[in-house]
């Protein structure tokens, strides 16, 4: 028998050396101080610069607008509406994009057939398709969704394709040696190997779709959504609502990107990342 005692333990994480309360205090300091500085400067400018409050409202006005829209419920239906659209598009687009991208990475024929159309379409920004989708679908939900799905599908497709193509060949050999072939090779080796780039693709697709959905909601009024709210707040000259909506967009986007997408990425990319150093 070999003694496992002889084996070196993995190194401890340096960050864990600090006591927990000091780490927390340090993090809080670096988050709170910059925000506080910005808020104070904002308030000073709003009160003292002489710029009309209708253009540059002080914080309490924006805060009241936030509370008002929250109480009326439009805040929640706007966030919900935008997210529902994103969700539908990300699910549909990721599904199509992952499947075609994986086939492109795996089969030479699929790659040859799709590479030119993919690159051609990638050169056309989703937003350029607004006139077309408006003609096709009118000012409807579908006019927005189709553009989002277009953008997500292409982004995910390109990332999945390169991900599957750049798989470490030695892993495919190991898969074959240990009994994976055909479909099981795909599910047990190719897909998990490509997962870090596929997930990076999802993240990129989400951030692109997030930008586009706001524009789309401004151009195509469908009754709710953060972009819709921005547009109509301007029409009615509700500057406070414009600012409140911008604030919401920033916070919601940031939180979602940090909590959901970064976590998914960290679970795959970071854990598997150092494997590549052996090549």
């Amino acid at each position, binding site marked *: 028998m070999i003694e496992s005692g002889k084996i070196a333990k993995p190194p401890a994480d340096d960050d864990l050396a600090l006591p927990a309360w000091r780490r927390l205090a340090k993090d809080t300091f670096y988050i709170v101080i910059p925000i506080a500085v910005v808020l104070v400067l904002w308030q000073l400018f709003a009160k003292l610069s002489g710029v009309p409050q209708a253009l540059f409202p002080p914080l309490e006005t924006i805060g009241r607008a936030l509370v008002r829209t929250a109480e009326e419920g439009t805040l929640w239906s706007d966030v919900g509406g935008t997210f529902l659209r994103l969700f539908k598009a990300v699910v549909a687009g990721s599904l199509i994009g992952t499947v075609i991208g994986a086939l492109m990475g795996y089969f030479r024929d699929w790659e040859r057939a799709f590479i030119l159309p993919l690159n051609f379409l990638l050169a056309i920004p989703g937003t350029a398709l607004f006139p077309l989708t408006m003609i096709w679908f009118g000012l409807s939900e579908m006019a927005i969704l189709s553009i989002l799905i277009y953008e997500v599908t292409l982004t995910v497709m390109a990332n999945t394709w390169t991900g599957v193509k750049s798989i470490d060949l030695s892993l495919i050999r190991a898969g074959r040696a240990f*009994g994976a072939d055909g479909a099981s090779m795909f599910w047990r080796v190719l897909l998990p190997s490509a997962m870090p780039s596929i997930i990076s693709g999802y993240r990129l697709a989400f951030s692109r779709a997030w930008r586009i959905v706001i524009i789309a909601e401004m151009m195509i009024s469908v009754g709710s959504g953060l972009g819709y709210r921005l547009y109509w707040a301007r029409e009615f000259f509700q500057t406070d609502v414009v600012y409140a909506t911008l604030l919401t967009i920033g916070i919601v986007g940031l939180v979602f990107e940090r909590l959901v997408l970064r976590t998914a990425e960290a679970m795959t990319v970071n854990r598997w990342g150092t494997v590549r150093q052996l090549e």
Partner: protein
Amino acid sequence: MGELRVERLRMHYPARRGSGHRTGLRVFDDITFTVGEGEFVSVIGASGCGKTTVLNLVAGLNAPSGGSIFVDGHAVTGPGLDRGIVFQEFALFPWLTVAGNIAFGLKSLRVPAKERSERVAQIVDLVGLKNFADYYPNQLSGGMRQRVGLGRALAINPSVLLMDEPFGALDAATREAMQNALAEIWIETRKTVLFITHDIREAVFLSDRVLVLSGRPSQIVLDLPIDLPRRRSRHDASFQEKEQILEFALGGCASQMGDAGEAAAKSDKQ
């Protein structure tokens, strides 16, 4: 069970424009050897002698230009779970834990979950990773990773264990520790092993027989039995005598190496 027979094995790479093989490459024409049941046989040779090619052919990962390979009398036509392979570059699945990597082949064999986890626990113990079953490969040192590689190959209880310069990527101290570990595991399991290396000491320390590949196209120029008692010391006079014989035999190979050899070494990796 566990006899490996290699008969008149031939490997040629055809001439191909743009591949650097303008005249084609004859790696070997006629290689014949047998590894008996429970025997540990090493193949040594300078890089480019085609030793890794031999292993890839036995593994069924590449197809030979001619000749046959038999494992327990069955002809090899492709990869199979009657052979367990340990790769030089480890080739562990980074998304699976140590236990998951070791279980990979067992899943291919459709071993039921309960039996599988028992087998994995047993193997994890055997390769000395008892407390590391839930670690991921990139959390492990090089030596530990190759223990996982060894465990993955042993788990399927193969007729023949194929090892392709398994310790070549490790530093000297770890390499020696891994050799000791492998020697102990071999004494415990008595597997039939085909072991590829360019390290003479390693071959003498581990093997019952050492085959020396040399020349171009290469041939087996020496089949040296290592009849030293097990739990060997690297410092015995008889050990060093074997080393000297092999060193002398290898000298011939190195002097014939040229660019063609380098090219063959590259093709081996593909």
